[in-house]
């Protein structure tokens, strides 16, 4: 574990009295979330290191639960007076008197760390980071004469959290993160196309030497932009789809993950709310969310409610098997915690969120899957997607290929895929053996809160799906 540095100046006794204040109107659970986060950012553009940035976020969020109701306040002034005033604000959700028994805070020490860090990027010298940004930039800029514009940036952060609640929990965690990305624009005969690549996770800068080099990041971004210069418009209509391994996991994230977040099921707004134990997909479909994958961007040692997370089975051989829980939903649904209560920062309360979501490896040889499609659409890379509770979802393909007679032919630009999750799970006919994870740069938005996530997926085939192209 990385050493914990206290930035808050509040003792365990201060936290305990704050929690007592929070319960003074009769709430049945109170929780303090203290956060200090420092970021560094380096941007290279127009062939120069254009800007460096440093920022600090500090604050406390306090939450009181009274049945299914939440009172919440936050402050970035951590004087005991302001902290306790925020506690009283949150307390007002309940209407009554203090009825909690006396409690003591017991600190829980974390032993295993999901981060794979020799030295956090945040503590590394800025010159070293600038060198990485330059390397990615150069690899993209000189990849091909048709490269017109490159933007390369590195962002790292370190987050210190202290979580205490009226059940007596006190836990502290340190969470390092880094991300190096490259955005490229290629130009030919007045036509412009865009390419993107990146990497990182809960790792140190050594990752960019040992796992994914800045040169590779720059070259991949440039190669995508250049390839798109010769891409054709996407076809329109229903056809078989094959998804490339790795970041096609966005499909699983949108089509399944969100709708198995417990809050949508507790409120019965998700199409899955009455389908627990029911068969919704083919035998091929087994889906997990695992916040404990070492080094991964979506991982954490404890969630933002202090719960130790565990790998959670969501769909087993096509049958709905589990939900992603936070404390509120788990209490109200009387289900065990899974450690998926996450928040963007101290100014938001936790809600059930994904961490690293993936469809498990299957039996099919990826080459065989491709060969089985006479005429269809192959998805190389995705920009992101969106889902609504009714199960309708879309995702945007930034680069694809036509499949003709089992082979990839012309590259295809910008297309949207749309479907309904239950239909897609039933049409997910082949799952490959080549499970891979995405770029380690993803962010998921829900109810105005952004959290880092990652997705994984082997090569998969969907027998029929609507492609929104122009031809």
């Amino acid at each position, binding site marked *: 574990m990385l050493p914990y540095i206290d930035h808050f100046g509040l003792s365990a006794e201060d936290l305990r009295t704050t929690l007592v204040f929070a319960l003074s109107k009769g709430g049945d659970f109170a929780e303090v979330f203290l956060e200090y986060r420092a970021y560094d950012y380096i941007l290279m553009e127009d062939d120069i290191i*254009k800007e460096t940035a440093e920022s600090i976020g500090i604050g406390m969020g306090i939450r009181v639960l009274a049945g299914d109701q939440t009172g919440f306040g936050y402050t970035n002034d951590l004087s005991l007076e302001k902290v306790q005033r925020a506690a009283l604000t949150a307390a007002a959700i309940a209407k009554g008197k203090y009825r909690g028994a006396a409690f003591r805070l017991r600190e829980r020490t974390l032993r295993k760390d999901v981060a794979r860090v020799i030295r956090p990027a945040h503590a590394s010298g800025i010159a070293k980071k600038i060198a990485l940004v330059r390397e990615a930039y150069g690899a993209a800029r000189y990849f091909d004469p048709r490269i017109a514009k490159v933007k390369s940036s590195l962002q790292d952060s370190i987050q210190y959290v202290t979580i205490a609640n009226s059940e007596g929990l006190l836990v502290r965690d340190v969470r390092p993160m880094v991300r190096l990305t490259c955005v490229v624009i290629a130009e030919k005969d007045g036509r*412009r196309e865009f390419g993107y690549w990146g990497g990182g996770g809960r790792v140190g800068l050594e990752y960019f030497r040992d796992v994914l080099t800045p040169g590779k990041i720059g070259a991949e971004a440039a190669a995508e932009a250049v390839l798109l210069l010769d891409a054709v418009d996407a076809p329109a209509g229903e056809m078989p789809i094959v998804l490339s391994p790795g970041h096609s996991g966005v499909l699983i994230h949108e089509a399944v993950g969100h709708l198995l977040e417990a809050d949508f099921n507790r409120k019965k707004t998700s199409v899955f709310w009455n389908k627990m134990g029911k068969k919704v997909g083919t035998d091929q479909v087994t889906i997990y969310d695992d916040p404990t994958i070492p080094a991964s961007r979506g991982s954490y040692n404890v969630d933002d409610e202090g719960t130790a997370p565990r790998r959670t089975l969501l769909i087993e051989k096509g049958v709905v098997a589990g939900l992603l829980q936070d404390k509120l939903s788990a209490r109200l649904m009387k289900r065990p915690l899974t450690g998926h209560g996450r928040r963007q920062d101290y100014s938001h309360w936790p809600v059930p969120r994904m961490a690293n979501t993936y469809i498990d490896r299957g039996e099919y040889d990826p080459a065989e899957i491709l060969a089985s499609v006479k005429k269809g659409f192959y998805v190389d890379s995705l920009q992101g997607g969106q889902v609504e509770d*009714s199960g309708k979802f879309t*995702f945007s393909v930034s680069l694809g290929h036509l499949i003709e007679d089992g082979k990839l032919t012309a590259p295809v630009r910008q297309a949207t895929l749309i479907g309904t999750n239950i239909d897609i799970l039933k049409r997910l006919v082949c799952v490959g053996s080549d499970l891979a994870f995405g770029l380690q740069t993803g962010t998921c938005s829900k109810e105005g809160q952004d959290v880092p996530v990652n997705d994984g997926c082997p090569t998969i085939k969907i027998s029929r799906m609507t492609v*929104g192209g122009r031809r």
Partner: protein
Amino acid sequence: MRELAERLVAWGKADGADEIEVSVVEGREFSVDVRRGRIENLVEAGSRVLGLRVIKDKRTAVAGSSDLEPGTLRRLVRNAVRRAELAEPDEFAGLAPLTPSTVDAAALRLHDPEVPALDPKTMIGLALETERIALADRRITNSHGASFSSDDAAVFLANSNGFSGGFSGTYCGLGVGLQAGGTNDRVEDSWYSSKRFFRELASPEDVAKKAVERTVRQLRPRKVRTKNVPVVFDPTMTSWVMGFLFSCVAGTSVYQKASFLSEKLGERIGNPLVHVVDDALIPGELGSRPFDSDGVPCRRTVVVDKGVLRNFLCNVYAARKLRLQTTGNADGGGVSPHNFSLAPGKSTPEEIVRSVKEGLLLTRTLGHGLNSVTGDISRGAFGLWIENGEIAYPVSEITISGNLGALLQGIEMVGNDLEFLSPVAGPTIKVAGMTVAGE
């Protein structure tokens, strides 16, 4: 706030910065979410955040903090001046020259004293009432809940060229999200009102009825065959297109060659019905401001005049890069819209629908699928199918695709129903032909 901002400017100069600018934002927020007649979440909070930018020998460093301890801030300024040396000289870097403002901030009506004085009971009551009215409609089968939120924020900006000024603004919003249909044929939509002045906010009845209507009209949707048809955009959808157009005329995208309109200044990019204006000076609107984050007075800028691209929206930096004048749209390191809209036309929305023999009334989209580099649009879509000038049935699980350039050329009718629900807006429009992909 003034004192804090000016003190940091002085520190920066003392540490050796050639130029420094400091902004401080202080806000108070209240919000309540209700669902099925009960309070679900209640939030009350205050926050302060500070941002600064220093330039030394044309080299830039920026910093930000929500920790306002003097020791932390002193260190941040010193670090920034030191870190600036690690960047490379950028001939375009630098603060805006001090320009005397002609904008009367008071006349802009940005702050409603009634908003911070609102009683929590009143705000909770409005949210409850909105949801109650919506749920009273028997076609509504579930609720995502109703919310009321309010915000009162003050901004102060000081820089080493002598600019020192601030203003405050309020915001309040009321909205509700609904579902209709059974578990397996569910449809959903929402509606909201947002204003700077509490008295201008739509009533719970209006918000609820609009949300109900938007939700139930989607019940029992059909799929359609893939075809190219005229598409009518309802005002929320035109606003979405205008948001995309904004990102393509933003000076920051233009100099980065991230816009398909980069080389089109002075050229015809749309038909003569297309008139697009960014106007920060409309009293009481959400996107109105007296000055931008460069300290430059805000103004009214004609972006597209009868189909011809006249101006990009710039901050000082983008303007220098493009050899243009700033339009006072600076916001942090980028640019933001200040009441950016497609000017209304003469047709009523009903007349527009009546003019379509077969086509789509687009009411909602899902997903991303916008590419400013190419202008390509491709999104999941929901709407109502039009046959012989009448709404025939709802459609879903379709996508629409096209290109913003072609769309602007293809606008055949512009509605008279412009209203600002956000700083970007547009009225109902009819676009000649787009690909609607279905079965």
